[in-house]
């Protein structure tokens, strides 16, 4: 009998179980987001009429019973503009994100499946692209494209916004590509797109979801900044950003509503998207502090 058996096995101290703090569903953000989207979709019902209509008798009117949100320096009814313009902002947000997500998924999967040297080259390229400030590239491309429309802006934002998602997709694909079902599918003659759709996408979709939501936010913010600078949508195309391009003039006439109301809607939308995105990320695992 040696010392060990005498003392016996002392069970290793157990760490307290990992506390997974599931973040609560952000009800407030979801409800506000729903209301905003519904309001914009139902714009012709809520605020009938042409948002671009210039009521020259009522310019720069403060909010009153006739114009609940006031009018801008050109006599447009802001209440009407908000709901109609929101459609354009949302369209740009979703279309640009759709585009960037598709590019990211295809590029990321291709890189993940490719030979190591192709893969490292492709990833190096995204790193270079990622380091350039987006807004400058977008500004530059828009200056070259010339006349801006919601579609042109979405395309430009879309083609400059896929880098970080593609990196995540690539990492996931790299882990998945050796798994039996992918190999089996390949052996049975499944093509790249088939494997991507059937086997890879369902696996990495959940991990890029939050980035996709954040991309909607980025696209909407980018459009509004561009339009504000006068490089984005022209004044005639009402969006929340182009409404704010009148802000400089509003500052001179002290017309706070022209700045605060469209901006408030914009920030509310961006904030809701951030909340939803953060919730999707679900702040990984929460381990007790050793400190």
């Amino acid at each position, binding site marked *: 009998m040696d010392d060990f058996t005498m003392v016996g096995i002392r069970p290793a101290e157990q760490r307290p179980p990992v506390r997974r703090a599931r973040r609560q569903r952000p009800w407030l953000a979801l409800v506000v987001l729903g209301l905003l989207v519904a309001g914009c979709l139902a714009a012709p019902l809520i605020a009938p009429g042409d948002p671009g209509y210039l009521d020259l008798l009522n310019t720069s009117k403060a909010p009153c019973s006739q114009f609940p949100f006031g009018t801008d320096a050109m006599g447009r009814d802001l209440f009407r503009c908000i709901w109609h313009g929101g459609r354009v902002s949302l369209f740009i947000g979703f279309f640009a994100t759709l585009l960037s997500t598709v590019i990211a998924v295809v590029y990321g999967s291709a890189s993940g499946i490719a030979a190591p040297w192709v893969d490292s080259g492709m990833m190096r390229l995204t790193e*270079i692209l990622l*380091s*350039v*400030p*987006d*807004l*400058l590239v977008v*500004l*530059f491309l828009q*200056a*070259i494209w*010339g006349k801006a429309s919601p579609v042109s802006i979405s395309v430009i934002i879309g083609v400059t916004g896929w880098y970080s998602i593609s990196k995540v997709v690539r990492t996931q694909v790299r882990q998945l590509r050796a798994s039996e079902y992918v190999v089996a599918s390949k052996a049975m003659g499944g093509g790249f797109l088939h494997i991507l759709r059937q086997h890879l996408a369902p696996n990495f979709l959940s991990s890029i979801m939050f980035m996709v939501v954040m991309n909607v*936010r980025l696209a909407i*913010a980018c459009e*509004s*900044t561009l339009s*504000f*600078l*006068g*490089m984005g949508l022209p004044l005639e195309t009402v969006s929340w950003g182009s409404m*704010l391009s009148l*802000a400089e003039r509003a*500052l001179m006439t*002290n017309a*706070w509503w022209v*700045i*605060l109301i469209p*901006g408030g809607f*914009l*920030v509310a939308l*961006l*904030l809701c*998207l*951030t*909340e939803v995105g*953060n919730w999707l990320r679900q702040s990984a695992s929460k*381990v*007790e*502090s*050793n*400190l």
Partner: protein
Amino acid sequence: MKRNPFAYYGKKLAVFFLSVLVLSAAVFFVAQLAPTDPLLAYYGERTEKMSVEEKAQARARLGLDAPVGVQYLRWLENAARGEFGISYQYKQSVTTVIGKRIGNTLILGGLGFVLTFVGSLLLGVLCAWKEDSLLDKLLCRLGTVMSAIPEFWLSLVLILIFCVRLRWLPSSGAYSVGKAKDLADRAVHLILPLVVVILGHLWYYAYLIRNRLLEEVRADYVLLCKSKGLSKRQILFGHCLRNTLPTYISLMAISVPHILGGTYIVETVFSYPGVGTLSYEAARMADYNMLMVLSMLTGVTVIFCNLLGQIINERIDPRIRAEEEREVARNG
């Protein structure tokens, strides 16, 4: 076995020059696709009154008639001699125009960068120190809200409050008329743009520091430090923070271009006479020579800062160096 430092820095330098070259070519060729006529930038309204022959002559004089490739090589040759041509819009050498403005941007961007760096470090440590406390939660909430506000709108609201309503601060420019040398006057003009630049970036980096620190305090060595009898402050500052710093510093190097990009927007909103407003004008007016130099200036900063970040990451952090050496030893 150590890697040869000359080979290391030589390789980085080669990458730098190659990237700059590729960038210059890319910008040059893409800029040619713009539909705006550069003659418009040079002659303004008069362009419309010019006959076809006059336009052709003007093009030949400005060297715009040659094929794009030739134009690019010509530009490259001049650039090597430090000549970047004249701005079509200002009718002055591009370097003179930029030289007058770049100081303003450096002051705004530099101050903004330093204050963001220090501020986010302090905020991040504070939040990590008081993890899950009311203060931490409050600051995190505030950060989420702030990060959802576009910079240009924040600028507008601040102008509305402090310039239009309260009339405390000036809303545009870098100094009042005739007071270019007055430091106090410049400082007053700098307050609002600076606040926007800082608020636009502070939270992101503070949040990053907080999360890195929170990961760090869950490492096993913290238990060892605690059993050694070190105080919370000693562990956090002496060990945890030290471990996160290399990553943070390299990240901050990479963040320079982003803060620079933010400065450009802020400059435009506040009509601050810096490089940002200049590049915005150049893009609108198709002032090629100007656009070229400005894009290159931004691009070179970006590339340089990224390389710097990499070097800091690979050289300063002893853990990475040790790993590298082990790998070299293993591979022979």
